[in-house]
């Protein structure tokens, strides 16, 4: 800072963005309800393509899993890549009506944060997650998935209990 005596500067600007969007002197404004509905509808339309999109990501995860099995010395890199893809997927599923994909991806993300001494059991855990995700997409299990959703979640939890060390 130029002035040595100044410890802190507070910048207080006129709210030009509000003037630009709500207008001068307008007290209360809201987002147009119809625009919101239209945007929701557009999202719904995009959601139809989501299962295909996510299937491609699951294929990528499967390839990385295969590498973990075939080339144990590459596990660290593979886990990094799986972790990255899982992070992406956990952020998408819920938006497009597939919260189970977000839940399973979140779990996969957590299990692939490890980078050292990756065991065969941990590789099996990856496979369990992929199986669960594939079942969600194959069955187009949107929302919570009802009984099937519970079964899939329980199944994955059982696998986690079995393989987790």
């Amino acid at each position, binding site marked *: 800072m130029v002035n040595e005596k100044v410890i802190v500067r507070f910048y207080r600007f006129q709210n030009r963005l509000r003037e630009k*969007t709500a207008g001068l002197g307008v007290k209360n404004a809201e987002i147009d309800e119809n625009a919101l509905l239209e945007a929701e509808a557009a999202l719904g339309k995009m959601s139809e393509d989501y299962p295909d999109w996510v299937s491609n990501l699951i294929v990528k995860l499967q390839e990385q899993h295969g590498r973990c099995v075939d080339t144990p010395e590459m596990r660290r890199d593979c886990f990094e890549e799986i972790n990255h893809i899982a992070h992406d997927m956990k952020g*998408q599923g819920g*938006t497009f009506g597939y919260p189970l994909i977000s839940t399973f991806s979140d779990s996969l993300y957590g299990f692939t944060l490890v980078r050292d001494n990756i065991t065969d059991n941990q590789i099996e855990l990856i496979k369990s997650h992929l199986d669960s995700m594939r079942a969600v997409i194959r069955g187009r299990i949107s929302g919570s998935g009802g009984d099937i959703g519970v079964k899939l979640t329980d199944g994955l939890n059982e696998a986690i209990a079995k393989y987790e060390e």
Partner: protein
Amino acid sequence: MSSYDFSRVTVLLAEDSPFIRSLLINSLKVLGVGTVHAVEDGGSAIEFLKKVKNDPMQVGCQQVDIVMSNWDMHPIDGMMFLRWVRRHKDSPDRFVPFLMITGYTEPERIIQAREMGISEMLAKPFTVKNIGEKLISVIERPRQFVHNSSYFGPDRRRRKVPPKSQDARVLTDKSEGVEIIRG
């Protein structure tokens, strides 16, 4: 109650996932945002903003009103991009509202983003309503910017909570060492 008119608003969006990028562009457009410049990572976003500063005619953009950026991108992620926006001399507007989009939920990540000067955080997975709420928050609840020896960005205090001890907050607008800049 009247509706917001976003037609004169320009948003710069940095998102590497084509699917999410397309969703965000669509949603912003349908909500009425006039211009959305979308790029694939933080590096391209920085290049774009440099052009806004140095050659606005070339990119057809005089000013960016809101930045929206994913955090997890390669090679330049959202946090590095935010750092550039807030601190670099080539940044065209160090005060621009910066909305970080992220699937990270770990508390230390949230703190990291706050310390780097985010304006708002949009948590993934999000809904269209969430996008709208964040836009409103950026418009209706901007915070003063604070510049001291260790921080530059929107005031990290959102609420006026009285200090827990006498030493906790000794500076007021009238204290020595405090400078208020209005504009």
